[in-house]
């Protein structure tokens, strides 16, 4: 059956063009009326004489690349709308090249798909906006209350004014004093808590906190860390019936002592009801035809009732968003279908598979003999099944990786919530470790999660209290041993006097977003140090490490310039060290920033060179001054000929590109002499000096002089 018959029968509503050798398009379906909205067509030859649609005209740039590519390829334009007098046209264009000279442009009327997508996203986005509005209201109210409550005296004086201000809010407010006695509440709080008087209000608030596990330990943690908690809770045993609440719990301090506890809550049950109705009406994921999240929970309940041992695997496809962004949602959707297919084949008939999120699948499989090792091996098997190349529409080739979190019944939990929570926590740790990780739940993960949270909170406090220190490691001229410059390294000793190594706190800072605050602290500390060092060595340069996230921040350059101006130092006394990984995804942004930094005189070094993706392309294109050879090559160079060859190559490459080289981790005379023979100019390492406090570094400078 050809396209004419399909169109006539209403199976498709599609315009088809053939791309000719002479760069023209020939319309194969001139009888489709709306084709003339998009293109002008010569009635005799059926060749396209003009493109009337602006969107199509733009898409043809990509389409031509697809047609002119040597191999098979296909790309989609995504949905667009063409305005018409009566009803708008909803369209999607596809350019295809089968690799054997057949090249087509298909434009499809996608009104039905468009309407379906719009209806689904309309509800989803309305929910998203409602949720944002609730959070925004609470945040704004929280901010204002904190300001007032911190002024303890005026606060008591203004109790009546505050009461009036909060009385008619749509957010429930309860403020307790340090002894947990009621200071203020409002009408909405009493309504949500079903309280008819002040006493009841406090009583029901404590009942709510107990029911949702916001216990004394939790509150003590908030108090110790002087932080606010915000989240959504399901109050199952609420008076008047279970309900969802968006909750904020915040201690208020004055002069370091706790003054008040602020509780804010909004009833979000209605939002969830809409959410549930939406979800329940779709028990099946329409794309993969697998069960949805709701159905999965019901299935998990059933499995638990059988009392048979089984494993729960949550599979997260890494960075799937990039597939959608780079290749379009059609390709992304096609690949998700293939993922589902592969998982189903791997699983066999005894197991159960559901799609529980955009790029998340959940799988249940029975085990006659169950151990952590067995479920871990099964998880690895799942990963291997997903490792082979995926082919979308017979053309696009993609490789994927997956992180997996595993919980087993009965070892790790006996309820749906526990097992899902445990597998979710295990998945979180897999993601924390990187890509293609499999983690089986163990109770220590909870401890580890709490430890990480504690370190994160302590680090945030240490940064804001300026409790970190800078140590400097000299970088010397290999031929004479003179100190040319130094690298600044952040060091942290916590309140208990324990040294927390950088390889512990820096990854935590990266994951939590504290890297920005840490970066700001480092920048200011380094500039201050440069100012101090200038008294003893006016030309010494101090280099600092900058993370990929920092350098991509839009205000990074401004911050650097402001710090330089603030400390009145020369930009040429600063150096920035970045790793190769920052170039993988954001080469253009980084290139612009680096060029601007270099323009004001800052030196740019590539740290740990040789361990990343070491693309010659970026070395040629990007504004770089220096390569730092990773310590792993230097460490074994006396026993490993490969490392010698690599170091020689890096030095040769740098020389050809006009870059200087610093060898890291030099610890022996033998390494020193080898590097000298290879004309490596600079080095740092324990052979010369360990990192040292600024004062000691100054003493060293004075002694050298």
């Amino acid at each position, binding site marked *: 059956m050809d396209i004419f018959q399909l169109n006539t029968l209403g199976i498709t509503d599609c315009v088809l063009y053939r791309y000719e050798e002479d760069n023209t398009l020939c319309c194969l379906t001139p009888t489709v009326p709306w084709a003339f909205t998009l293109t002008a067509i010569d009635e005799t030859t059926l060749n396209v004489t003009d493109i009337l649609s602006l969107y199509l005209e733009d898409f043809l740039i990509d389409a031509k690349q697809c047609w002119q590519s040597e191999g098979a390829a296909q790309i989609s334009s995504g*949905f667009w709308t063409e305005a018409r007098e009566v009803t708008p046209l909803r369209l999607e264009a596809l350019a295809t090249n089968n690799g054997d000279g057949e090249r087509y442009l298909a434009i499809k009327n996608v009104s039905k798909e*468009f309407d379906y997508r719009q209806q689904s996203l309309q509800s989803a*986005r309305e929910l998203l906006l409602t949720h*944002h509005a609730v959070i925004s209201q609470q945040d704004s109210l929280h901010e204002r209350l904190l300001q007032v409550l911190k002024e303890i005296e005026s606060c008591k004086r203004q109790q009546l004014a505050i009461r009036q201000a909060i009385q008619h809010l749509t957010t429930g407010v309860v403020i307790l004093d340090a002894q947990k006695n009621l200071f203020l509440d409002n009408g909405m709080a009493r309504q949500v808590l079903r309280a008819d008087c002040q006493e009841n209000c406090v009583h029901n608030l404590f009942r709510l906190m107990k029911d949702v596990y916001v216990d004394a330990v939790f509150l003590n943690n908030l108090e110790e860390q002087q932080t606010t908690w915000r989240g959504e809770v399901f109050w199952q045993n609420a008076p008047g019936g279970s309900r969802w609440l968006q909750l904020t719990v915040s201690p208020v301090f004055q002069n370091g002592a706790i003054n008040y506890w602020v509780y804010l809550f909004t009833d979000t049950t209605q939002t969830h009801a809409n959410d549930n109705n939406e979800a329940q009406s779709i028990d099946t994921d329409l794309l993969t035809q697998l069960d949805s999240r709701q159905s999965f929970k019901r299935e998990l309940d059933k499995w638990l009732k059988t009392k048979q041992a089984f494993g729960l695997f949550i599979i997260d496809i890494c960075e799937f968003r990039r597939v959608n962004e780079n290749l379009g949602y059609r390709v992304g959707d096609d690949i998700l279908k293939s993922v589902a297919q592969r998982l189903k084949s791997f699983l066999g008939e005894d197991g159960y598979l559901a799609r529980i999120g955009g790029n998340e699948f959940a799988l249940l499989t029975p085990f006659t003999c169950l151990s952590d090792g067995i479920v871990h091996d099964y998880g690895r098997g799942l990963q291997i099944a997903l490792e082979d190349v995926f082919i979308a529409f017979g053309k696009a080739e993609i490789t994927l990786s997956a992180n997996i979190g595993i919980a087993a019944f009965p070892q790790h939990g006996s309820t749906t919530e526990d097992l899902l929570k445990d597998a979710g926590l295990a998945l979180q740790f897999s993601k924390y470790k990187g890509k293609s990780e499999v983690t089986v739940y163990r109770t220590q993960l909870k401890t580890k999660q709490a430890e990480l949270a504690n370190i994160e909170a302590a680090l945030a406090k240490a940064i804001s209290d300026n409790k970190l220190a800078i140590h400097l490691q000299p970088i010397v001229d290999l031929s004479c041993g003179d100190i040319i410059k130094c690298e600044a390294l952040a060091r942290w000793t916590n309140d208990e006097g324990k040294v927390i190594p950088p390889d512990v706190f820096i990854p935590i800072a990266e994951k939590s977003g504290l890297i920005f605050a840490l970066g700001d602290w480092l920048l200011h500390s380094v500039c201050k140090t440069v100012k101090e060092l200038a008294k003893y060595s006016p030309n010494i340069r101090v280099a600092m490490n900058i993370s990929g996230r920092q350098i991509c921040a*839009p205000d990074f350059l*401004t911050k650097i310039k402001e710090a330089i101006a603030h400390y009145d130092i020369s930009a040429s006394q600063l150096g920035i060290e970045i790793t190769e990984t920052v170039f993988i995804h954001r080469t253009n*942004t980084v290139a612009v920033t680096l060029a601007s930094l270099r323009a004001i005189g800052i030196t740019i070094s590539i740290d740990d060179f040789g361990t990343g993706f070491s693309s010659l392309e970026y070395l040629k294109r990007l504004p770089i001054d220096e390569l730092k050879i990773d310590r792993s090559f230097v460490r074994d160079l006396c026993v490993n000929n490969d490392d010698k060859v690599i170091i020689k190559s890096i030095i040769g490459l740098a020389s050809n590109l006009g870059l200087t080289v610093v060898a890291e981790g030099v610890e022996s005379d033998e390494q020193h002499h080898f590097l000298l023979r290879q004309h490596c100019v600079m080095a740092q390492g324990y052979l010369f000096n360990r990192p040292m406090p600024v004062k000691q570094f100054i003493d060293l400078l004075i002694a050298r002089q």
Partner: protein
Amino acid sequence: MIQKKICLLGPTGVGKTSLVRQFVDGIFSEKYLTTIGVKIDKKQMDIDDKSLQLLIWDIEGVDRYCGFNPRYLRGAAAFVIVVDQTRSQSLLEGMDIFTSARESFPNTPAFFVVNKSDLPNEWYWTSEEVEQRQRLFTDAINTSAKTGENVEQLFNKIASVVI
């Protein structure tokens, strides 16, 4: 006549489509209808005795359901990041989109629009925090697609930069 492509970007629900409707047709609807994909509108303007046609690309809001697609910005004379002053989070989301757009288009003029100025400002950002971000743009303006406040001015500013 000179034609210039202008792209409207931003998080979901900030009022990109409403700004276009107000500017092109002079109408506003309270009902929120989410945009899917792209819709292009045209509007002719006269700037300094020159006739200019703006080709305004109204692009689906960026959120967890729809990522940012830099391809839409190809050939744009300017792009606009629209955020919503009743939703603090929209500023962060808008800046994320701006960063992504700048990766591929470092030199294209970019305008920062804080929409819904007819509603009370619910942002918890300080004016300094907002200004710090605004400085990264070619120009910034507060608008109301509902009352029409500054909508014409926004497109006039854009037109005078791109012409």
